[in-house]
């Protein structure tokens, strides 16, 4: 059963860089889009709010796989320009999770106590200073636990890229399946464990960030009792019971 283990490991590991690139690329786009769209959701201008709302609801309302197929397969025909599957995948991961992240950022900014803003106004801060010096540092720490969940969701979504032929881990396993039919269990277990390990890494980094951010604000870090957040994968922006915070 285990005689081909070394070979499986080798083949699957070839896919690991793609999974990591897709995750990191997706995370980068997610962060940028969530900040832009999240702040846009709070904008004073109705048009800006409206555009941002359309983006958020559009990407949250449709299936991620449909978005992937659309951008990787349909869009090239419409605009006559073919993206490399990996890039198309990264773009979809970023666009999709950015829509969820926008709600996180919006919620976090709104959770900053009003007195903080009033204090900044009283100290004659300009709106830009208010945002940069007072609101964002406090909102930032609030976004970390939900972003941790979001990034793990994103990591899990990278498996979808197998369906548009990106040679990431799941695709590598799929390539092995027809050849080693009887040992397919070992192959899948290897990639499942690798995904799990990657998600532990994400959680670890986010916890470090959280602790650093808490220290910067002069707060005590929060203790966590589980490996992943109990609310992992919750529809973002809500509490465990679904209520808005």
């Amino acid at each position, binding site marked *: 059963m285990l005689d081909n283990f070394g070979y499986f490991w080798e083949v699957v590991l070839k896919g690991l860089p793609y999974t990591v690139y897709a995750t990191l690329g997706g995370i980068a786009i997610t962060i940028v889009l969530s900040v832009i769209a999240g702040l846009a959701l709070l904008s004073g201008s109705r048009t800006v709010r409206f555009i941002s709302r359309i983006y958020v609801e559009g990407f949250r*309302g449709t299936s991620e*796989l*449909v978005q992937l197929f659309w951008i990787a*397969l349909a869009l090239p*025909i419409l605009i006559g320009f073919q993206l490399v599957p990996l890039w198309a995948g990264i773009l979809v991961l970023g666009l999709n999770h950015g829509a969820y992240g926008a709600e996180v950022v919006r919620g976090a900014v709104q959770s900053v106590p009003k007195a903080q803003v009033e204090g900044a106004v009283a100290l004659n801060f300009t709106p830009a200073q208010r945002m940069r010096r007072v609101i964002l540092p406090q909102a930032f720490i609030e976004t970390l636990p939900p972003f941790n969940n979001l990034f793990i969701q994103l990591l899990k979504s990278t498996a*979808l890229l197998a369906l548009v032929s990106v040679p990431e881990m799941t695709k590598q396993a799929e390539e092995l399946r027809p050849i080693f039919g009887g040992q397919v269990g070992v192959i899948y277990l290897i990639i499942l464990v690798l995904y799990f390990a990657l998600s532990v890494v994400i959680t670890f980094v986010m916890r470090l960030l959280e602790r650093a951010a808490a220290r910067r604000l002069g707060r005590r870090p929060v203790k966590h009792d589980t*490996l992943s957040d*109990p609310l992992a*994968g919750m529809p973002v922006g809500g509490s465990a019971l679904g209520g808005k915070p």
Partner: protein
Amino acid sequence: MWSWELFWDSFSALLPGLWITFAATVCGALLAYVLGLVFALIRQVRVPVLSQITFGLVEFIRSTPLLVQIFFFYWVVQPWMGVQWSAFWSGTIALGLHYACYTSEVYRAGIDAVPKGQWEASTALSLPRRRTWTGVILPQAIPRVLPALGNYTISMFKETPLLLAIGVIDIVGAAKDFGADHYSVEEAYTMAGIFFLVLSFPSSILVRRLERRFVKH
């Protein structure tokens, strides 16, 4: 290259897929509701060994991709158990199992939210344990978790297309086939996107209503 004719034609081609998607969502959701409660109770009652296994399983399943789990269930678990279900059932069970790990946390939060006094009162009335759960705790916990379960049901609805990877012809599977038949994929995929948008948007409004009704702030 966009053809409106194909776009409108794809509508009727996707309808049979819609039923498959619906069926998978409903069956998967029912499984997730029931199994999630079982997982939550095992952990709350602290059944020795089983409780730790459930904890590990829930953590693991939540941290790994559903797509791989669907493959794993279809290609490994099924043959191992010596059964041969259709791709639809195998995928739906994998979907339900995946989401059970999320709903179990929802139930847990709901159970934790029941005030401690309710437990103490049950003890004071020397209610048997079973009656405490079924008569006091769960009737208070479950209404609170309904909106969160609703949100997960919507997420499941959006993840059912993954079943196409093991050959289930759901909305997206039907769109794929339609595209292959007509040598043009963009219309059918766009239509599939519209299907999802049109169906999930009203459901999320419905869930928000449910939230306002059951979750007091």
